[in-house]
């Protein structure tokens, strides 16, 4: 009996030591909670909010930063991705269909093996096969809109022009970490009609349009007969891209791309394009 008790005591002490070490000897890390379903109202987002969504997806649901980070060198860094894209598209090893930086980033997400950076291919594949999973499938199952948000984030990260257009519809129900800030909750109330949107953003203060008679900028009453939707969208997002004859540059504030939601922007563009 004495031996039995000694052996039991020794074994219990061993178990207690292992348990104690696991509880006290190493830092306690609380794993992130599982993602929860959240329906995004992308149409109500401004470009800044869309970029912020891309960042959250990059570091959260997509866990992209697990590999695309400087420590460990598991995957290429993406802080200069748009600048490097042109060089990669011209590379003889490139197997994809992309034509510019935006489509290259998109393609890299849905078809990672279209171009594999030297040294980052799967072991034994001679850099022809990427270890990265396609983000459109599997556990990440990114929607089109989410992939565009990541592209917008990467473009913004690099400090180049964000060429992505915010989609107004979400093609699949996206997911976000439960801990992520809900952007829609803090966004200003959004206009329901183009007239309301133009009133909200004060277009009539400078332009003659929609029953208002601003005189600082060009008249827009029949602008749809002169300019197409793409021109009008560009003028709203980047007013200095095309300056109307007789008007100085920098007159129109370059803020609407940040302030307007994608849906508001499209409503205004469609409305203006219909004024013929």
């Amino acid at each position, binding site marked *: 009996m004495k031996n039995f008790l000694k052996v039991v005591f020794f074994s219990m002490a061993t*178990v207690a030591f292992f*348990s104690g070490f696991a509880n006290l000897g*190493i*830092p306690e890390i609380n794993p992130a909670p599982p993602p929860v379903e959240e329906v995004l109202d992308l149409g109500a987002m401004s470009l800044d909010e869309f970029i912020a969504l891309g960042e959250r997806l990059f570091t959260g649901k997509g866990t992209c930063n697990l590999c695309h980070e400087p420590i460990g*060198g*598991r995957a290429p860094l993406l802080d200069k991705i748009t600048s490097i894209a042109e060089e990669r598209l011209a590379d003889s090893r490139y197997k994809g269909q992309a034509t510019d930086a935006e489509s290259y980033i998109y393609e890299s997400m849905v078809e990672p093996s279209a171009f594999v950076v030297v040294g980052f291919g799967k072991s034994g594949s001679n850099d022809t096969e990427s270890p990265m999973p396609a983000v459109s499938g599997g556990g990440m199952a990114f929607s089109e809109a989410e992939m565009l948000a990541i592209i917008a984030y990467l473009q913004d990260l690099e400090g180049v022009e964000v060429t992505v257009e915010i989609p107004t519809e979400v093609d699949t129900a996206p997911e976000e970490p439960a801990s992520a800030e809900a952007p829609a909750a803090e966004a200003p109330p959004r206009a329901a009609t183009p007239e309301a949107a133009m009133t909200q953003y004060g277009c009539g203060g400078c332009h003659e349009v929609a029953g208002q008679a601003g005189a600082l900028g060009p008249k827009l009453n029949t602008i749809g007969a002169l300019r197409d939707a793409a021109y009008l969208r560009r003028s709203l997002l980047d007013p200095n891209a095309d300056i109307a004859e007789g008007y100085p540059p920098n007159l129109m504030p370059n803020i609407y791309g940040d302030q307007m939601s994608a849906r508001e922007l499209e409503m205004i563009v469609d409305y203006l394009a219909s004024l013929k």
Partner: protein
Amino acid sequence: MGSSLTILPSHPRGALDRCLGLQSNNARPDPIRLVLLLLVVLLLPAMFGGADVFASEPVAAVAEAGADVGQYPPAPKLTADDYPRIPGVNSRSVVWLAAQLHLWFAAFVLAVPIFVFIIEAIGMRTRDRRYDEMAYEFIKISITAYSITAILGGLLLFSLILFYPHLFQYLSTIFKGSMFYYALLFFLESATLYLYYYGWHWLQGDFKKWVHLTLGLLLNAVGTMLMFLANAWVTFMMSPAGVDPSGVFGGSEWAAIHNYLWNPINIHRVVANVAYGGSVVGAYAAYKFLSATSTKLRAHYDWMGYNANFIAISALLPLPFAGYYLTAEIYAYSQQMGITLMGGIFAWLFIIQAVLIGALFLSANYYLWCGMGRSDGAHRYNGYVKYIAIVIVGAFLVWFTPHTLVLTNEELKSLGGPYHKYLGPLGIMPAKNTAVNVMIIFTTLSFMIYRRANLIATVPWVKAGNALQIALFTAGILNILFLGIYHGYFTNTVYKVAASIPQVLTTLIIIIASTVIDAMMYRGAKQVAPLHWGRITGRSQYALFLLAVAFTWLMGLMGYIRSGIRQHWHVREIFRDTSVDAITPTLGYAANMVSIGTILFMAMVIFIFWISQVSTRKTVTEGYWKEAAE
């Protein structure tokens, strides 16, 4: 849902599949070869090819034709309310403990017949009855454990059906064939085990003994098949195959069984089971040794403990390689899962693992060094022990060193970054690979001096042989250090990982070559004196207890990480876990669960050991029974 069906995965097969081929055999009609061939014939088709029994149609054909796909639903999308709950009962904890206890017992009862078979074969070859008796004693222990394994398996099944009915329904839809054959095989396993155990004394003598040994082989083949089937269900949840991205089953059960991580887990578990079984039997022998009242019994249980420890350590030596192979395949399957495993939230778990494996190696070596006291010639080698101990402890400390440290701002400032200037470089994998290889080589050295302790070589080339051994070990260790340091710190990541393979090969070459050289050197060697079995300290027996407890705890911990890397998925990236327990538990919580499981397991094992002795006890009952009429 699209009409076309894409079957997962398109991943290339694992390294084992790539290089394995059944070689042509010019086997002579040797009985041992015949039984080995039988084992191969039984197991290989299930592991590597064919398995027509599970494959009604080729996967590709089903995928192309879309045949019968409509009959299989996609993976369910559940809410927390879809999981039945019982007030006051934590579903996950119940399933966790039932699964872990079942696994510990299953590992034990699958492992014991493996080395019972080997020991019986050794007994047959040497005609040393002691081996046969020891093999019988081992199988006697496992027979009670067998029924507890089955009971725990039933408990696991019921708790799964009760608490996770949708998961069980989904898995059973895909694995209905293998589950049915699993049940049939279980009958065969039971029948073979009972015949093997109860027929032990009946099937003795020339031909009958061969029949008995063949039964042992059959028992092992069936047991291994059972484990492989259960492994398929588990690995499907980690690396699903044979289903489309929404979880719709493609119709080929074989594709789902033969998923990417199936063979790596199969290999890892077979090796680990043997080591584990050896350690539990070693603990049994240690307890019997401490309780023995006669010199003869002490000698018997000392000898039994030595053999059990020998088996455990022989399997422990290749175990890190099997683990490394499994991890590499996890990375190859999904880099994201691999990083979660080694570089994400589970990274600190490997520090705990290092403590446990360090405890295993140190206790196993300590037992060997103590065991040298059985020999009168050990004094010639005692001086080397302290150097071996220093190297093993040093290697353990390297393995134990973390890469990054969780620090306060002040600590970070004082340290100058998250890495320590000198110790930081020891935290990365090349340092740890080097350390574990060195640890294994020096454990081999411990074995070697233990074997030599009681022998005096008589061959004329002893000096040359010793010089050759020294050269072998020195060159090998230098090579391992060079590979670890040069490729680990002066080349890029690809070579860091790739260098581990020549390191492992170097270690294997040292083990094999040194064993062969020593076997030749000590052929016909003189014994210093007969070994004094039983001449060993009681303290040394606690090393065997430590081995068994550390193994049990380690298996529980690694079970947590194997399951945990799926994170919030029942079937990874196919079937989400939306229960209230979907969150990955912290390491501390997991460690406490493992400790509770270990204590329950030890209590059950003590009961089994006790019950196996009860059957041999008799109480004299004079005057109780009516005397038979004359």
